[in-house]
């Protein structure tokens, strides 16, 4: 039985709650139990056409020719869509936030980079006719070597997965081929440590598997508009993406969503709407484009695979002095949301612990796998698994009970976190104490006496005196959008970015620079992004009470992305 104890966050609690603690009905439940909740497919249109995609059977191949002649003459076929029918056949979702380079076609024209990538779409009177015609599209494939492993993909000579990113690595802030976190000096701390504990952790892709598969129905509406019913979890992303790829003002698109048959993140970067709307535009009739279950499993973007290497420097008494991460996110063939997941994940490092020296290099790697996307705990779950498995390993190395080890290293209110924000509302210690009680584990007296509210801040609340910086992985000649340049300046409108070649410095050299130019500044506030362009040191650690009323416009931008996956 969970008890919600009032002493925690007492100063922040609002006890005028009139719902929490009482059973309540969902506001949409009546529709659910009567079968009347209107999911995207629950709209009847006379003369509805059905769209099915022709998909790559290969992980990686060039397209020599797509022959649609026979398919076009099949019974019931109204139209066959190929890449050149798409007004702007290149996109990346986060370009709507001016982050990342357009890298993914709606319908591939020159090459495919994952198994199941669509190259054409059949529009037919019935679904069965569309399926039959799919089998008659002849694609002349030039099959290329593929790469399915993140570390293989970044070796020299690996097949280039996505033309835009020639080294198979996403480029962060126009500068680095990975997302950096530098806080203190891990190497110096390793030299002082009594134990070095290293681990490698791997997590496979996970399919969100909502019971409703992804789909959309679009139909011509009055006033030269199109209505689109969609299963998207992110209605305004989908609207923006459709408007961009179809090069039409979004006020000509009437999107209706919100009733979603489960999403769990898998319906954030939906690409059904532009295909359905394009179908409606070119045929003048209502069109439905929905995945079947097999497609949902094969091409539905999963939570991506992650591989983490963690190296800790640990004192004899169990204090973790330094933690170094090397992480590889498997983005699959295109960026989708993995680039952002890493920013969020790096902001979370080194987990809920106060470690004075932290270093992370995290790579967003392109492989010939299904593009990855959001899923619950996006950007966090994989590395948390790695961190917590590693904590157990550290406990074993120093001969401590794993819960005692966690309490000892736990963050407390007022501590400085590696992303340079002061920790507040921490409750890991209390959580561990309750877990130990429930599990009947005897804690050390010091663990029993510890509190999240005491002994934090002070020395622990200060930034490290020295942070070791380096220019490893510097990339020049690439423009990933205006994200890195923001700092209050209005965002650059999304522009088609040409595919520039870019060069890598031959050697990665460590060139110390003032801390304010630390390149790793994940999901920062508007204020601190501005400071990264100047030599102003980061704001001094504020006391928890003060931080609550600090404006957080910058963070809101990204929390609006993460808010999308809460279904």
């Amino acid at each position, binding site marked *: 039985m969970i008890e919600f104890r009032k002493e925690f966050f007492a100063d922040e609690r609002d006890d005028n709650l009139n719902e929490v603690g009482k059973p309540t009905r969902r506001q949409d439940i009546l529709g659910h139990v009567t079968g009347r909740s209107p999911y995207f497919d629950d709209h009847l249109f006379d003369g509805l056409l059905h769209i099915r995609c022709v998909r790559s059977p290969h992980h990686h191949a060039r397209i020599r020719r797509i022959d649609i002649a026979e398919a076009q003459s099949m019974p019931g076929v109204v139209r066959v869509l190929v890449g050149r029918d798409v007004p702007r056949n290149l996109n990346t979702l986060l370009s709507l936030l001016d982050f990342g380079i357009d890298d993914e076609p709606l319908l591939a024209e020159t090459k495919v980079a994952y198994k199941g990538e669509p190259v054409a779409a059949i529009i037919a009177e019935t679904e*069965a*006719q569309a*399926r*039959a015609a799919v*089998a008659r599209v002849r694609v002349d494939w030039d099959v290329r070597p593929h790469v399915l492993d993140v570390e293989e993909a970044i070796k020299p000579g690996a097949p280039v997965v996505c033309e835009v990113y020639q080294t198979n690595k996403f480029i962060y802030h126009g500068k680095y081929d990975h997302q950096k976190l530098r806080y203190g000096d891990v190497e110096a701390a390793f030299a002082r440590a009594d134990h070095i504990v290293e681990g490698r952790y791997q997590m496979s892709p996970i399919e969100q598997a909502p019971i409703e598969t992804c789909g959309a129905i679009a139909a011509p509406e009055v006033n030269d508009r199109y209505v689109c019913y969609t299963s998207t979890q992110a209605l305004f992303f989908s609207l923006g993406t459709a408007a961009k790829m179809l090069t039409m003002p979004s006020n000509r698109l009437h999107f209706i969503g919100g009733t979603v048959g489960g999403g769990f993140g898998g319906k954030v970067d939906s690409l059904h709407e532009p295909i359905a709307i394009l179908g409606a535009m070119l045929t003048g009739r209502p069109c439905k484009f929905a995945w*079947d279950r*097999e497609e949902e499993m094969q091409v539905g973007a999963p939570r991506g695979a992650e591989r983490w290497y963690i190296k800790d420097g640990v004192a004899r008494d169990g204090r973790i002095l330094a933690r170094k991460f090397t992480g590889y996110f498997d983005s699959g063939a295109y960026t989708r949301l993995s680039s952002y997941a890493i920013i969020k994940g790096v902001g979370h490092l080194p987990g809920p612990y106060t470690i004075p020296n932290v270093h992370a290099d995290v790579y967003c790697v392109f492989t010939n796998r299904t593009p990855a996307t959001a899923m619950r705990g996006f950007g966090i779950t994989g590395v948390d698994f790695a961190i917590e498995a590693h904590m157990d390993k550290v406990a074993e190395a120093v001969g401590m009970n794993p819960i005692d080890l966690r309490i000892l290293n736990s963050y407390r209110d007022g501590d400085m976190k590696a992303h340079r924000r002061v920790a507040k509302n921490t409750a890991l210690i209390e959580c561990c104490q309750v877990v130990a009680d429930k599990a009947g584990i005897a804690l050390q007296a010091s663990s029993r006496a510890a509190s999240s509210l005491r002994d934090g801040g002070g020395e622990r609340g200060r930034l490290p005196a020295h942070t070791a910086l380096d220019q490893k992985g510097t990339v020049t000649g690439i423009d990933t959008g205006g994200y890195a340049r923001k700092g209050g300046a209005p965002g650059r409108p999304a522009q088609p970015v040409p595919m520039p070649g870019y060069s890598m410095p031959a050697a990665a050299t460590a060139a110390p620079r003032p801390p304010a130019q630390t390149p790793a500044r994940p999901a920062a506030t508007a204020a601190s992004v501005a400071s990264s362009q100047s030599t102003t040191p980061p704001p001094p650690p504020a006391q928890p009470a003060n931080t609550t009323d600090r404006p957080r416009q910058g963070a809101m931008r990204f929390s609006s992305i993460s808010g999308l996956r809460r279904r």
Partner: protein
Amino acid sequence: MIQSVETHATIAEAQRAMGADAIYMAGGTLVMRDVNAGVTATRIVRSSDPVLADIRLSGDGVTIGAGVTMAMIAVHRDLTFLAPVARSVGGPQIRNMATVGGNLFAPHPYGDFAVAMLALGARVSVAGQSAAPRPIADVLRERGRIGLVASVQVPRPQAPADFGFLKASRIKPKGVSVLSIAAYLPRQGGRIRGARVAFGAMGPMPLQASAVERVLDGQSLDAATITRAAQVAVEGLDPPTDPLATTWYRREVAGVHLKRLLERMARG
């Protein structure tokens, strides 16, 4: 793509209507998947023959129409020995639809009921043939060429403890077989006479475990015999790798599950 659906009054007529462009549909739990995916023949042939839904007891045997569903078997008063087998197939909706005939033709990893039929040494009547019913092992080996099945004749075990069935799956209570095992061990004076043991999901079709049968024959079902039987469990089997389990895993656990089944049968 399906162009037509034909329903024939007798199974013999349905047999005559078959051809390279036709697929026979019973409960449809497998055929409709293919129809939905657009990967099947152009004609669906069905039969409304009432004999297909018949369950007829005869002496020490029972004749089960090919169209009898798993749900019908699960509740039949005289087929309690087969109820656990029928109940192991799919979820409740599948059992209301899935037929005995269809199960004989279900590809790996399906065919749990066929495993029981193989262990019981059932005989199969083929539609439109007056010849004697054929041993089920032949039918399983030649499925695809055999024609339509009209019914299955199944011996009924003299003692309920002579027949046992086990299915290992990853999801419970519903779930597809990692493997299934059926054992028919008639005993005379405490000794097994004419052991028949069959495995499902351990090869391209339900397979008889002759090595196990040889170990069991003439023995009493004691701990030593069970251990020896488990040791030879995978002899002659050819388990595939699929999303549920690897070849290695299936080989590894086959003996363990056989041992559990035999121990349960020994306890009676």
